[in-house]
């Protein structure tokens, strides 16, 4: 069995677990803002998704161990709640500075897509060549799967052919 690991990180534990729950049939949660679920793709391949809540002490987490093997990090935030934007920028900066790992910044978007908050285009998020920005719909499993596809695409881009 080949298992790929994906980290789902966000300032709100609910966003992480909600995303994982939408594509994994079963999800385990802890009281410390960590959850995980497995997405079985066939009898040979599966994805293990770890949802980890980002908070002040999060930098002490064993990211280096996880980031060594993971396909990448999905940084989740709610597009309509701009107060999480600063934290998202901080998460992104942290991962960009510390690890060479593919990152997809996933903005949760429910309903209206035309409203673009001012902060969004003021250069608040610094994307490196290993990171992408995209929207996802929390109710649509295919939209969430696409986030992992985006991570795989970044891996393919940087992997020697």
């Amino acid at each position, binding site marked *: 069995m*080949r298992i*790929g690991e994906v980290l789902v990180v966000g300032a709100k534990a609910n966003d992480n677990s909600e995303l994982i729950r939408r594509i994994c049939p079963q999800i385990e949660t802890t009281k410390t803002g960590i959850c995980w679920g497995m997405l079985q*793709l*066939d009898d040979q*391949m599966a*994805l293990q998704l770890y949802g980890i809540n980002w908070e002040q002490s999060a930098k002490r987490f064993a990211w280096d161990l996880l980031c*060594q*093997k*993971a*396909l990448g990090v999905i940084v989740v935030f709610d597009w309509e709640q701009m107060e999480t934007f600063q934290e998202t920028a901080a998460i992104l900066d942290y991962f*960009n500075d510390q*690890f*060479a*790992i593919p990152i997809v910044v996933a903005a949760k978007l429910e309903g209206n897509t035309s409203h673009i908050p*001012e902060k969004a*285009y*003021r*250069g608040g998020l610094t994307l*490196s*060549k*290993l990171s992408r920005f995209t929207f996802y719909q929390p109710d649509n499993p295919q939209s969430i*799967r*696409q986030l*992992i*596809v985006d991570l*795989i*695409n970044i*891996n*393919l*881009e*940087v*992997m*020697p*052919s």
Partner: protein
Amino acid sequence: MTPKLLLAEADNTLTTAFRNLSEKYQIAVVHSGKQALAACQRESPDAILAAQHLPDMEGTQLVHSLRKNKSTQYVPFVLFSEELNLQARVEAIKSGVDEFISLPFEIEEVQARLDVLLAEKKTLPQTPPVERGFSGNLHEMNLVDLIQTLELGQKTGVIHLTKNNHEGKIYVKNGEVWDAETNGILGEKALMRLFTWDEGVFYVEFQDFDRERVIAMPVQEIVSKGLKITDEWLHLKNHLPKLNTVLERAREPYLDEIDQQHTNILELVDGEHSIEQIVENSPVDELETLRIIIHLFELGIIHESLFYFDTEKYNSETPKEEPTNGKSAPVKEKLLAVISRFFKKILSPSSSTFTEEVVTRPAPTLSKENQEKVKVKLKNKIPFQRTELQMLKRKLLV
């Protein structure tokens, strides 16, 4: 309608100043000259406000590129700089800048000057490229399609192509291709080179031209060659990193390991030139050059440069943040070269495994971009091969 402004700057000086004017203007922000050029094609801003020092080019270079492109030649351009002397202002105006504003500035003054420029722009005739022609993106309509279109209509005109900072022209008379030019190359060779441009923009100007016919090949043969080149180019590109990747030698070839043609290409691999620059300077055709580069990769003779040092970028990025301690830039460069050699040594295959620990925390003197390159090179520890990742992707998309 709210005017669209494009702000190009490395820091947030302009963005901060315009923060409270989002009702008056639609504002988009970019952080490099290349991003600005791309955004101009995409967004068609009503005015561009740029800092003189951008990470990849000067503001004056940016305006110079914009003025060469018919779709952006009349867009008002305001340059912000700390340079106050007359010479700098004259140079800026010569390169096509409409307004020159010294830093620090008062936003009211900028606004007033900007409004005048925007009002003047309204009185200008609309940009000419679409008057008697058409324009588009090469990604959506490639050169083969364009030539076929002109042949079908038996048209006379010039196809203008722009890719990054490069330009190309193809002269067509009554549907027949007469001549082509790009980067100082003319005729058939230029045409074949232009077939490899799978991105960029074009516009077709329906106008007669005074030029001798240089390309005698019939259009059907050109189209068939063009299709072959386009397909082959895309196929070969998939076997390589991005074409702006800088290459360097990994080792010297063994005696008789490679032929003369390979040697000629290898001589162009110097740790400073990207794949696309090597293709441009190559003595053999584009496809053969890519084939040789791929082969040299496979033989392990060349690899991506981990330590490519962009002096221009470095100089524009560091002086404000990093104390020089009296050391001149060349000294820094030398230091960087020493550090590079050190890292190369510890990265060699024979080195012990603990080196990863060292390299993931690169020396602070490396630019952020180079640090990233180091880390990217070292990571790749995911337990999947390329084919497995592709399979994984397919399963996810089902």
